């Protein structure tokens, strides 16, 4: 009795307190904990947001952004929106153009417009800049010209304004967003009436380039798999200490700067290089083989650089496969090769999947190796992205190609996820 009484007395303060308050305190404690956790991940989250998510969003946006014409020629675009792009132009288009260009000249935005139009219609640059320089158009009393007079004056400045071509390009780009760059990245274009058609054959290139990128990535992935699988298997059967020692041989090149490795391959593979000299000394070839500035060099170097990304996942998976399964299969009468193929290999599927995915995706984005070791026929999508960014300053095109490359990678990743799930189920 006494013990119970003391217990209940001791328990009294616990039974009494307001359940509401308890809940509040609990919630406060949880909130504090959650805030603490948030604060811990905040630096990384902010870092990722700033350096990863935001640039990708900006890239996707820039791939469809088309602000130049709409921003510089608002009045002209408004007039042209009612034009069917076939019939004769209304005079108002000319007076609107004169006003828009006069303002563009003041704001020095005519250059942006000229650059944008010139991408689609060669010659527009000097047409726009030359016309803008002559603005504003004023009559003898210093007043703005009437639409009909503006038409005459502008065509007198440059007869190209009398042709429908440039007007059609302006009308077509009147919207702030346009599929132009994305279509161009797929060798497509919109004709003046908005229908999608194939690009001119002499400038159609990107489907070839995307195909080449996927093909070269696939070849490199296959070679790395063929080279890495036996090596990883061999390493996994070794005692820990020796395996670690040999692993260092894999990792040292992995830690070396990619530029250094590419430069080293140029030295090794060039016509006067070590490889060719050795081959000729051994009497295997008479004249030096062409091993660099072609696809062979790119494959060799990319395989070498990407090999660790295949070896490491394979090795880690193979380490976890118990050797007893294989022995059991053989002891039950299986041929050693069949046992290896049907018992061992399926257990390494997760490693193969991870390695293949990693190598394939990384190879798809390769720039420096093909640029330095390949010829023009080895350049992949990244080369053209760099080309548009650095050389022609056509950032819309660069972003569209980047967006498509990203989309291709995501699709492949999605495919992998499906297969990977199946594999996990089996093992």
């Amino acid at each position, binding site marked *: 009795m006494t013990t119970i009484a003391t217990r209940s007395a001791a328990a009294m303060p616990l039974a009494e307190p307001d359940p509401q308050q308890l809940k509040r305190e609990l919630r406060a404690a949880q909130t504090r904990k959650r805030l603490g956790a948030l604060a811990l991940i905040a630096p990384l989250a*902010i870092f990722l947001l700033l350096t990863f998510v935001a640039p990708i969003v900006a890239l996707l946006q820039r791939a469809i952004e088309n602000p130049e014409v709409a921003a510089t020629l608002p009045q002209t675009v408004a007039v042209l929106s009612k034009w069917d792009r076939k019939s004769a132009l209304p005079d108002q288009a000319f007076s609107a153009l004169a006003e828009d260009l006069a303002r563009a000249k003041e704001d020095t935005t005519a250059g942006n417009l000229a650059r944008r139009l*010139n*991408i689609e219609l*060669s010659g527009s*640059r*000097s047409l726009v800049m030359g016309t803008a320089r002559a603005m504003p158009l004023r009559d003898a009393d210093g007043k703005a010209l009437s639409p009909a007079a503006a038409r005459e004056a502008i065509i007198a400045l440059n007869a190209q304004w009398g042709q429908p071509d440039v007007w059609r390009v302006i009308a077509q780009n009147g919207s702030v967003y346009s599929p132009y760059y994305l279509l161009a990245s797929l060798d497509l274009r919109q004709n003046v009436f908005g229908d999608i058609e194939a690009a001119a054959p*002499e400038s*159609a*290139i990107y489907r070839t380039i995307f195909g080449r990128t996927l093909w070269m990535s696939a070849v490199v992935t296959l070679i790395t798999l063929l080279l890495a699988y036996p090596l990883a298997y061999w390493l996994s059967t070794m005692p820990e200490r020796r395996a670690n020692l040999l692993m260092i041989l894999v990792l040292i090149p992995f830690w070396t700067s990619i530029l250094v490795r590419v430069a080293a391959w140029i030295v090794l593979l060039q016509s*006067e290089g070590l490889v060719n000299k050795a081959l000729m000394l051994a009497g295997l070839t008479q004249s030096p083989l062409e091993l660099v500035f072609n696809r062979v060099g790119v494959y060799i170097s990319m395989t070498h650089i990407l090999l660790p990304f295949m070896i490491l996942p394979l090795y880690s998976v193979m380490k976890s496969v118990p050797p007893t399964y294989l022995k059991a299969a053989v002891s039950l009468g299986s041929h050693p090769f069949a046992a290896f193929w049907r018992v061992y290999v399926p257990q390494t599927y997760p490693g193969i999947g991870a390695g293949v995915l990693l190598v394939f995706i990384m190879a798809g984005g390769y720039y420096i190796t093909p640029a330095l070791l390949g010829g023009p026929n080895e350049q992949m999508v990244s080369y053209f992205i760099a080309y548009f960014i650095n050389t022609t300053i056509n950032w819309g095109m660069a972003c569209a190609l980047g967006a498509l490359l990203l989309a291709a990678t995501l699709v492949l990743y999605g495919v992998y996820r499906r297969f990977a799930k199946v594999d996990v189920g089996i093992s």
Partner: protein
Amino acid sequence: MKRLTPALLSPLFLGLLFSGAASAAELTLVNFGGANGNAQKVAYVEPFQKSTGTKVVTAEFNGELAKLKAMVETKKVSWDVVEIDGGDLTRACDDGLIEKLDLAKTIKKDDYIPEATVSECGMGAFVWSTVLAYNADKLKTAPTGWADFWDTKKYPGKRGMKKSAQYNLEFALMADGVPTKDVYKVLATKEGVDRAFKKLDQLKPNIQWWDAGALPAQFLASGDVVMANAYNGRIDAAQREGKNLKVVWAGSVYTLDYWVIPKGSPNKALAEKFINFVSQPENQKVYANNIAYGPVNKGALKMLDAKTLGNLPTSPANAKDAVQLSLQFWTDHGEELEQRFAAWIAK
């Protein structure tokens, strides 16, 4: 202090990371480096530092306007004087990437060749030429022009060519028999462009492409190619090193490089002072003695000896059968043709 959470710190760190090192009373000169960069160092940078006491930092680029654009758009301009290709001058000026120059106070137009002072955005730096160069040790008979460059039967071996439509289309037309004075007239038509690409097709399997100016001289010296189109100054530099490389002036295409000031440069006054300094005849004379590029100051031309003059693109004998690069043509058609070239070369 323990309350100073990482979350609070990270923007600080980011700020530190992204803020470039900026300092005043220093001039940043950006050029293409190499032999030309060395000549500029001797003729311009060092004397300027000595006479003004201003430190000049030199940096190299490969003519990428994108870098300039990124700087100007983000308003973080760390370049003060930039040497740019004539073909880019109009584009950069139209796009508002460079300052309008106010050189009228110090520069008298009559003292310069006319092309040097045509733009309100740039001051002519020097005249240079893209020429046919060959390794005289490897070829028994000297080639005389672009028709020989295309003749792989008479001159077997690879050709080094600049990886751009500019120049190569001109050269292809000349090789196809178009007289130098009509090159741009033909190139302005669709048929002319097709004709040039068709001519390039013939040579395509024998071409080793280059994009950095130092490469063709290396290709030639190592024997990788027997002929190349190259900047004449780079060949001159290789000759000075004792390489037996020769230049064919017939059919060469010359143009100017220009000094420009990026829009928003913090040292604009100093940059103008520098441009004025390098335009003086005595400085340009030293420059031309160090590399075979033509001075734009007429006074400098008078100070040069006959041997130096004979190597310049501007000497009458060399300019006789040369073409001036049409900036107007490339400003208008550059995008389309470079795009087509990029597609052509990758196929």
